[in-house]
């Protein structure tokens, strides 16, 4: 019975995520079109809702080519290695709270206190090291791209692969350190407990600095604009997936977008309160009083799921917005942002959090949150100020270097 439920959970999640991926592409294209004062795909079906279907059919029926000089095994393995991590991330993310035992109140109770009859069907696996699991799976996502780049035996792919390896490793550190701040606040590594601890105040407030670092480095982890040098069309003709076509390309495409949803979901879980929504508990109580606990459980489950999805959608919109607004960064800038700014900022955040939480562990969470927020904003402002100053200094120095001789001879 247990196994059947898990099987169903996995199946539904994968189907939902795949569909989500398909419509995310449509969402992105429509939004980008709006940003650029165009209309976007609107021919297939009303508002273009059959567009993803048409794309899928097109990709399915394309000729399946394997370059003759490619390393066949690795070439075929790479798309799979790209998709699998993007899908298994979802195992530990609590997408809502629908207690199968019919007791909605268990959702709001401290985990471990009386969680004996608690089984949330909107979270596949409730492991006590969930956050670490998320980081581990994110970190193995590099392999698909890197190996694709190597196995294609093409210069463009190779360069894309090397770039991706360097970029993903660099930003993983900042990402992990930013997450560490949230973990320190929650005092746990379990995703379920992380969400529980955010019932009052979302970690985006006390961990504002970490949240900003997380958003930037997550964008880099996703190799999306402005950090998409890995697949820069102009210089690398799409980088690692140059030599891939048909369904294999579709798999890379899919992994990219699924990862995008997944990282948004991680962001929501760790910083934006997960499935929590103000007044959710009250709603449960009201429905429970009117129609019994069973109905209340269903209502809470559905509302929490919707709330989770809404938050994910907000982050996804942010990503699309970024893509529409910003140009690509230069490679040395990419490395310098990751190593010289984000990582130190994340470390500062860890130290500040440790000091504030360690000095007064019993402080009112709101006061604590505001103190941390103020410090975080101040640090962020300082960093911006410093980077501006550095840039203007460099400009002056460059001018001075050029001026006396009138430029290079």
């Amino acid at each position: 019975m247990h196994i059947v439920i898990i099987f169903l959970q996995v199946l539904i999640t994968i189907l939902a995520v795949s569909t989500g991926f398909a419509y995310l592409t449509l969402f992105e294209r429509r939004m980008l079109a709006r940003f650029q004062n165009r209309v976007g795909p609107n021919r297939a079906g009303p508002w273009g809702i059959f567009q993803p279907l048409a794309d899928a059919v097109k990709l399915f029926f394309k000729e399946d080519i394997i370059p003759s000089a490619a390393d066949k095994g690795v070439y075929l393995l790479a798309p799979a290695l790209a998709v699998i991590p993007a899908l298994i991330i979802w195992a530990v993310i609590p997408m809502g709270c629908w207690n199968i035992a019919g007791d909605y109140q268990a959702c709001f109770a401290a985990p471990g206190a009386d969680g004996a009859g608690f089984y949330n069907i909107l979270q596949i696996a409730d492991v006590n090291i969930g956050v670490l699991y998320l980081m581990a799976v994110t970190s193995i996502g590099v392999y698909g791209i890197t190996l694709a780049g190597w196995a294609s035996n093409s210069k463009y792919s190779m360069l894309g692969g090397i770039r991706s390896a360097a970029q993903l490793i660099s930003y993983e550190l900042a990402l992990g350190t930013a997450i560490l701040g949230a973990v320190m606040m929650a005092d746990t590594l379990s995703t379920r407990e992380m969400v529980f601890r955010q019932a009052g105040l979302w970690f985006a407030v006390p961990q504002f600095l970490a949240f900003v670092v997380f958003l930037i480095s997550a964008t880099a982890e996703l190799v999306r604009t402005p950090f998409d040098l890995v697949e820069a069309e102009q210089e690398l003709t799409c980088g690692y997936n140059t030599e891939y076509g048909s369904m294999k390309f579709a798999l890379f495409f899919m992994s990219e977008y699924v990862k995008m949803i997944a990282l948004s979901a991680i962001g929501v879980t760790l910083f934006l309160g997960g499935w929590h929504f103000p007044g959710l508990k009250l709603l449960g109580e009201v429905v429970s009083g009117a129609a019994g606990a069973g109905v209340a459980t269903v209502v809470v489950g559905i509302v929490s799921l919707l709330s989770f999805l809404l938050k994910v959608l907000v982050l996804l919109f942010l990503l699309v917005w970024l893509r529409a607004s910003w140009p690509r960064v230069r490679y040395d800038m990419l490395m310098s942002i990751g190593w010289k700014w984000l990582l130190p900022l994340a470390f500062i955040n860890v130290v500040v959090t440790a000091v504030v939480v360690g000095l007064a562990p019993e402080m009112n969470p709101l006061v604590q949150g505001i103190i941390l927020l103020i410090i975080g904003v101040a640090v962020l402002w300082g960093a911006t100020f410093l980077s501006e100053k550095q840039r203007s200094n460099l400009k002056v120095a460059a001018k001075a270097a050029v001026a006396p001789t009138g430029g290079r001879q």
Partner: protein
Amino acid sequence: MQLLVQVIFVLIAAEIVGAAVMVVTAKNIVHAALWLIASFCGVGALYLLLEAEFLAVVQVLVYVGAISILMLFAIMLTRHVTGKGAETSLYQRWWVGLIVAAVLFAAVIAPTVLAHPWETATAAPALPGETGQPAAMAGIVDLGRAFVEEYLLPFEIAAVLLLVGLVGAIVIAFEERAARRHIPTLAEEVAHRRQPE
């Protein structure tokens, strides 16, 4: 249940050993690296079987997610070693190595394994902890405490060790570049920037 666990153990162990054998025998160096990754993943699975989730995930995070990808990265930057050149004299007298290894193995390991009074499943060892209860599995909290209590010194030494690794990496990477062209130090850069005023 016991049998199931044993079967799983045998499968994982076979995967680890098989992948490790492939690491040394694979002629393409990238393939060797990939087999190594497979072996690391197997070790992670073994930890999971021992109910050491933290260790399992850290194994994946550190070995699979960081170290192996760096190895791949290094291999890719030196592409000409990945070709056919690697398969030269290493494999010509493989049987000599095999015999020597087998004899040494027999001489050292076999008497030990045969003579040691292994505890079989029937005579379960007394579990540590109060009144026969198993001691709580070391969670991350216990682990963190051990780092600042019993294992404080090793923990700090490990920090210095990492510093050494960093300095060494800089020496190795920096050396040739320094010979090729001038790299300004912090002091020079500061002086250079101050000049305009």
